[in-house]
């Protein structure tokens, strides 16, 4: 029988300091996330230098908590996986250097994990992944369609050409004077709405799986601006609903088209925006009709966490891909296959 494999995951790419222990790539033994969101709220967004400072304060406490909750010591681990990129470089460096020091002190192998691979592998913590698989990754920093023909193989078939979906959400939330982070508020207003402002859809050229949200964002800003000039009150629910409908329709339509073209066995959604209730609902309905299994992780595994890094790290470590003590933070890291 194969020996069980325990991976410690560490994630500090943005504003969550997180550590987790995952068994065999799918079973969460412990999962600790220390969020800095309260600190960044006063600035209306994540301030990189402030984020880095908080990571240093939290990092060893969070790793220790992950070990304590799992009732394990470093000796019980098989490897340390850490987010290598993309992300805020100063923030990434805290997780990476803590992971290196921890791995070195305890004689453990080190595995560098791509943040998006992590988001995708969050699904392995919920149900087994089946290939070929299509992943829609939507977050504050990413909007991507990734095709996986096999475990550890990634093919980027579409990505945003300007703003990430989550970025557009934050900007529109600012137009509506909603508190940071704005996504959940827009989602709520949209779901409560009895109407929607018609906003454009950015389909780009025919057959493209790429996305664009800056035009939509501008349309929302112009709409609000024009209303203001005419001295009219805007209905925030209608604006939120119109914006969200445009985002959801484009994301869903392109994901469906790709799922059909590549004849995938599974479609998954991942990333912080995958926590959006409106988006989840439309994707679920669409793929139920299409008869393709669709999964989205629970909200706690959609937002940044280290269990997903451990899960992806488990696959990469099993493929024999390890890093060394010279590992650096790579803010623009590309999603490369490891199998």
């Amino acid at each position: 029988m194969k020996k069980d494999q325990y991976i410690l995951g560490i994630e500090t790419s943005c504003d969550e300091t997180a550590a987790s222990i995952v068994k065999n790539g799918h079973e969460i033994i412990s999962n600790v996330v220390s969020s800095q969101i309260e600190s960044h709220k006063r600035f209306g967004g994540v301030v990189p230098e402030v984020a880095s400072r908080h990571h240093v304060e939290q990092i060893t406490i969070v790793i220790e908590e992950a070990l304590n909750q799992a009732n394990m010591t470093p000796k019980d681990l098989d490897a340390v996986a850490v987010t290598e990129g993309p992300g805020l470089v100063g923030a990434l460096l805290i997780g990476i250097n803590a992971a290196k020091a921890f791995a070195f002190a305890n004689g453990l192998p080190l595995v560098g994990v791509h943040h998006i691979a992590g988001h995708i592998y969050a699904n392995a913590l919920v149900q087994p992944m089946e290939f070929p698989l299509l992943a829609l990754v939507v977050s504050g920093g990413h909007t991507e369609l990734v095709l996986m023909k096999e475990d550890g193989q990634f093919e980027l078939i579409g990505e945003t050409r300007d703003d990430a979906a989550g970025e557009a959400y934050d900007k529109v939330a600012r137009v509506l004077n909603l508190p940071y982070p704005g996504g959940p508020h827009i989602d709520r207003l949209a779901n409560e709405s009895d109407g929607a402002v018609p906003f454009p859809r950015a389909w780009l050229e025919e057959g493209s799986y790429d996305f664009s949200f800056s035009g939509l964002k501008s349309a929302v800003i112009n709409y609000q601006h024009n209303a203001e000039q005419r001295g009219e009150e805007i209905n925030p629910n209608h604006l939120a609903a119109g914006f969200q409908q445009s985002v959801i329709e484009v994301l869903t339509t392109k994901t469906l088209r790709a799922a059909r073209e590549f004849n995938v066995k599974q479609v998954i959604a991942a990333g912080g925006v995958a926590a959006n209730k409106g988006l989840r609902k439309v994707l679920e309905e669409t793929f139920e009709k299409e008869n393709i299994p669709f999964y989205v992780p629970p909200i706690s595994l959609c937002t940044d966490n280290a269990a997903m890094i451990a899960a992806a790290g488990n696959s990469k470590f099993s493929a024999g891909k390890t890093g060394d003590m010279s590992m650096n933070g790579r803010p623009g890291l590309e999603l490369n296959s490891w199998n």
Partner: protein
Amino acid sequence: MIWLGIDTSHTPLAVSIVKDDQVLAEYKSSLKITHSIGAMPAIEELLKKAEIEPHEIDAIAVAKGPGSYTGVRIGVTIGKTLAWTLNIPIVSVSSLQVLAGNAPYFPGIVCSIMDARRSNVFAGVYENGQVVKESHMSLVDLLKMLDESGNPVLFVGMDVKIHWEQIKEVLRDKVHQANAAFSLPSAAVLIELAKEQKATEAHTTVPKYLRVTEAEANWMKEQKKNGHE
């Protein structure tokens, strides 16, 4: 007793292993290699050469800043993680004091500086081994303060040369500049200073930036303004 010392607070990288009263091995460079790439490999290599296993280390000394924010954080993160997981004490020492420690026997004031841009410096002022001042300040204010003291001053640090003309102009024949050999921090000096200072808990060991972030400074200004209205 085996000490591991790490200073990544500025461009230079310094790592040292001291066993009891002997410096076993030391690494020092001012090459512009990112500390995240250079620091852990240097630690790994030095320990290997000294045939010391990580669990044989008894204490960690780390330079806590000021300096480059990212640089300081790399050293402190490595230091606190090692100290926590090896369950050994960690002592964090001012990076300015480490630099000034290159000139222990100078009869007068030792002033270590790091450039902080926009005519500002991080400056440490020491007399008879005692801290007079450690602060982020304008070079003009620093020089005025040193000039008023009337004592001879020795400047230490690799950034001294950037400001030497201005320093010389104000302090004239009272001022000296440490030569190249004494311009980089030494982790052995760091360890010797650490031996005299108190250990902190690994979890609560954090950098000393001597400066709030710009975002926080603006926010505080805003709060103050709103409070007065």
